């Protein structure tokens, strides 16, 4: 069965392009526009990975990661944070909130898959 990935980003173009690359490589993709929407889309269903943007209206990426980790079912799900921040402290903050890893924007298709490979087989 295909791996299922939830993409959370308020930017339409980024959401669509990531989703295009992933679908092309055989992943099932569900899209959410912000943290609140992401929690709705999770809805107890089985996901293999969550990729979320950092800055979003309603609920940002860090907050989303914290919320997801509180849910027993998603305690161990890999979560990647998309960010333009290059400061190491910001990444530690993400890590402490429960993110598995991060990916710096802008990124190429290759580095997207390289990072996914680190957390998902």
């Amino acid at each position, binding site marked *: 069965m295909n791996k299922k990935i939830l993409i959370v980003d*308020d930017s339409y173009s980024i959401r669509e*392009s990531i989703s295009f690359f992933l679908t092309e490589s055989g992943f099932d993709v569900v899209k959410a526009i912000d943290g609140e929407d992401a929690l709705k889309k999770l809805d107890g269903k089985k996901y293999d990975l969550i990729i979320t943007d950092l800055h979003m209206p309603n609920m940002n990426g860090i907050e989303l990661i914290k919320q997801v980790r509180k849910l027993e079912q998603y305690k161990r*799900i890999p979560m990647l944070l998309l960010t*333009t921040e290059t400061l190491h402290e910001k990444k530690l903050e993400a890590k402490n909130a*429960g993110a*598995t890893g991060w990916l710096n924007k802008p990124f190429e298709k290759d580095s997207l898959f390289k990072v996914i490979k*680190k*957390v998902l087989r």
Partner: protein
Amino acid sequence: MEDFKKLFFDEASDLLIKLEESLMHLEDNPDDIELINEVFRIMHSLKGSGSMFGFDNLSKLTHDLETLYDKIRTGDIKLTSDIISFTMSTNDHISQLLKNDSDESLVLRTDEIKKHINSIITSGSTESIDEESNNTEITDNKSRNSVSNSNEATYFIRFIPNEDILSDGTNPIYLVDELADLGESIVRLNIDNIPDFEEIEYEKCKVSWTIILSTEVDKSEIDDVFLFVEDDSKIEIVKISEKNLLSNFNSKSTFEFVLNNKENTLENVLSAVKSLETMLDDRSVIDELTAVESRVVSENIVDEFESVTSVGTKTESAGIETVKVAANKLDSLINLVSELVTTQARLVNMAAETRSTEMVILSEDLQHLSRQFRDIAFDMRLIPVQTMVIKFKRLVRDLSKNLGKKVNFTTEGTETELDKNIITTISDPIMHIIRNSIDHGIELPETRLENNKPEAGNIHLKAYHSGTSIVINIKDDGNGIDKNAVLKKAIDRNLILPTDELSDKEIYNLLMLPGFTTSELVTDVSGRGVGMDVVRKTIEDLRGEVMIDSKPGQGSEITIRLPLTLSIIDGLLVTINNDSFVIPLSSVKQIYKVDKESVNNSINNILNVEGVQFPFLNLPKLFGSISNETDEIHFVTVSYKDKSIGLVINKLISEYQAVLKPIGKILKNNEIFAGATILGDGKVALVLDTNKLIDHYSNQKLM
């Protein structure tokens, strides 16, 4: 990517409208933190997406604006009406950048605006923004560095994950795998810290890894593997040699020994490295010499073993010694081994009858040995499919050039091995198939472009094991086969009746009937009518099978199924009218027990078994049953082309590995047997060639 640019353009235009709205509201309520946040987020979005889609200037500008509004929302800078109106003016500039990001005058203006933003930031707060822009450059350098170095080196890596590493979704095994993918490695899992079963906390990670890695990549790439875990876990990466120390077997086993030792410390590893390096230096001279020598030998051992193979395995060939053996000596070895296996099978039978335990043990030992002997002997005749691929590559290159077509030829699984005799025989038919693909299948570049296909066509050859056979699959993305043209021609040539109803696959397989060619225009490459029928005959003579499939406009696919070796078959030993026969297991699909009545009462030789209708051959009857009184009958379904055909037989005896012997001259013209084999009790059993058997009897209109 262009499509996404368009998406971004639309999205950015929306964002700019939103931005303008927010700015206007801000003019009235400069303290509204929600509005400031909104502006910040819009800048952030523009920056992030812009950089993704190549709008570098736009992204740089919005980056600075984002910094500005970040400082405003944290209270470092107070939002004045000047800043708001300034932001509005940049708004227009951004929409121009959106139309043309690299326009020179716009770029100049961008720099001016950026300067202005920076002056607001510096005058408004003491912190400078240099820090962050520096950071971006560092990452740039990093990616550049990783490309430059290509020298091999060996590293000692110790990875002790934080106990809680599993809690954020990290799976440390993936990281170890990623490391192993970087080059050659020896991985040792340390489990000494796992507590007793009663005390295990299953959410804690108590294991660690010690790894020796030889790789060409930069150390920074090794560091990158641990990017997400480097802060919490203990990671030690030490370069222990500037050479690839895992390239030969000796050093590998040395490292394995050291790592498996309890004291697998860096010191111990380093001292092992020292002794290995001196050894390697001594060896390198000898290695160079043997490398040259073995390349010469390997080129000669099989005539098709052209230089490509030895180039491909150059590093390994240094360690392998090859000996040139005449093919006929190998053949007689195989014959003798076959005799040995047969004789030994009789011995096992005899030993069982004597009921002497010693005798049984002895014969079983001999059986064990002779099986190993047989496997090695057969293995000696196997050569990789790769050996014939070189010829194909040349063919594709020359032919596509001649015909003015562009063709990419790709292969997969060419390390799959096949009997040398099969490779020699099969190579010409495959050449013919590829020739057909290029000549009739792949369209001219212009036509392909018109049909929205990439200019260059693809031909993909894939070899793989499937049960006891090897499958070679040749697929192209050309124009496919014109079904109607095939049908028309087949009817014209009286190969089929206009009233015959054929499935698509059956139609395509008409191509392989003797005297068939579809190309309107006979070129000098293919299409002389001695085409696919010869291909089919050659393959069937090897006890193989060939199938054609095609999708109009999308390409054709030809699948060849071949036995692993010619001289031994895994078979099903059965009796028909008290005589023994062997049915090759490769074609057997399923075995059913049926009652005699239903076979005898069947109409048109169709039998319904478990809800499926099977056409069948009543072998006891066809083979001239003397006594049709045997109670027991079985129904074996075998694959025939795309269908399942039932064979009625009497008794099932066992699975049997038959050493195939040619049948004598008297039966030479009898096609339905692939050969004969000698059973354990010395009796002879005929081996059925199910395809030809079914062909033979269906031509007699018995089905």
